[in-house]
């Protein structure tokens, strides 16, 4: 039993932050990312910029910042991201919002109708953006109530098991694997899900 305890403490106290690269390499990478962002800004579409150093997520179009959302916390797993813009392949959520199908003739002369629409509040706050290049950005809400607090409490230790296992599995397959777990306010998480369409550009500035 003592041996197990010793191993546990050795592992915990050895775990430290990632070694930082030198300033030159950081500038080189950041410049390349800025160039990638300028390329995205040439198009009229909305794109997303995660700045993990400033802990912000910004919705942008043509370089203009439309909305800046604070990141409460994040955890980065796997190989470093390439210094390029990624594109959203799909949004993955347990309960994905569905569109209402309008029945012809139903709306006519109906003053007391109930609003059947897809609104921001219908968006999930716990989901993942699956990007090209096998990159997964998982979004979850900051614990604001008991239920989300409990879910977060269970999800973190599970991620510390599943993420390294996925890293190991992908390393065996010689495939890149990167996962970023991001914590946002619930409404901010819903805003990101709402605003980003498939094939939107995503730029991630590293911490």
């Amino acid at each position, binding site marked *: 039993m003592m041996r197990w305890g010793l191993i546990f403490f050795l592992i915990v106290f050895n775990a430290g932050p990632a070694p930082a690269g030198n300033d030159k390499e950081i500038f080189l990478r950041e410049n390349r990312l800025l160039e990638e962002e300028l390329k995205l800004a040439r198009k009229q579409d909305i794109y997303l910029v995660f700045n993990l150093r400033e802990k912000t997520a910004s919705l942008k179009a043509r*370089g203009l910042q439309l909305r800046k959302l604070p990141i409460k916390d994040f955890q980065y797993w796997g190989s470093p991201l390439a210094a390029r813009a990624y594109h959203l392949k799909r949004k993955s959520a347990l309960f994905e919002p569905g569109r209402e199908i309008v029945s012809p003739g139903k709306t006519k002369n109906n003053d007391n109708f109930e609003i059947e629409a*897809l609104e921001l509040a219908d968006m999930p706050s716990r989901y993942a953006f699956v990007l090209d290049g096998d990159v997964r950005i998982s979004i979850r809400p900051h614990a604001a109530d008991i239920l989300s607090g409990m879910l977060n409490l269970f999800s973190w230790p599970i991620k510390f098991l599943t993420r390294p296992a996925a890293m190991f599995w992908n390393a065996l397959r010689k495939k890149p694997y990167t996962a970023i777990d991001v914590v946002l306010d619930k409404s901010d998480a819903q805003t990101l899900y709402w605003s980003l369409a498939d094939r939107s550009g995503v730029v991630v500035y590293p911490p």
Partner: protein
Amino acid sequence: MLENRFLLRLLLFAAILFLALDAAGYYIGTRNVSFGKQEGAKSNNGKVSFSALRAKNRALRQRLNGLTPNETYIVIDTGRNLLYLKKGDRTMFEAVISSGSGNMLKDPSGKRQWVFDTPRGEYRIKTKYLTPAWTKPDWAFIEEGEAIPKDPRKRVEEGVLGGYALGFGNGYFIHGTLYTRLLGRNVTHGCIRVGDRDLKAVYAAAGIGTRLYIF
């Protein structure tokens, strides 16, 4: 008694194993990430000076910041149903709007379908109308269960778009509404509805070519 002690040991062992694996996971996760290195950068890294890299960084940031329009522009937040009239970083005016419902309508023939989303991205104001009339598209008749008229004059409906309309392409407009109680909700067929007083201010401030950012 013996079984209980065995079970207790087993549980303790499982808990320690779980924590150890978790800690190992944390170790692997934090140790493997190095942001300093990047693909294809090695060849340039030695040649370019640090000051040149920093100067380029400053120039790129300036180029990006310079993309914010100096003239008046409109930002529409379809999630919160808000319209902002802005100049540079300054917000001059804010209004509650209604934007697309996201609903779907299928032609009973099965040949066509419409999704009532407000388009996202950057657009420009292309047309401006005073006391506009609405030329009802096919979906408006299908939605109400009516036959689509062959005479184009029967498509025209007066007084439903308010006092002003600003078109931003593909049949989408910023216009007024009779349903002011629904402002703040996602109820439109893709257009942006604004209250009368706010619409007048938007119409006065936005000219042809004014940029419109919808997200």
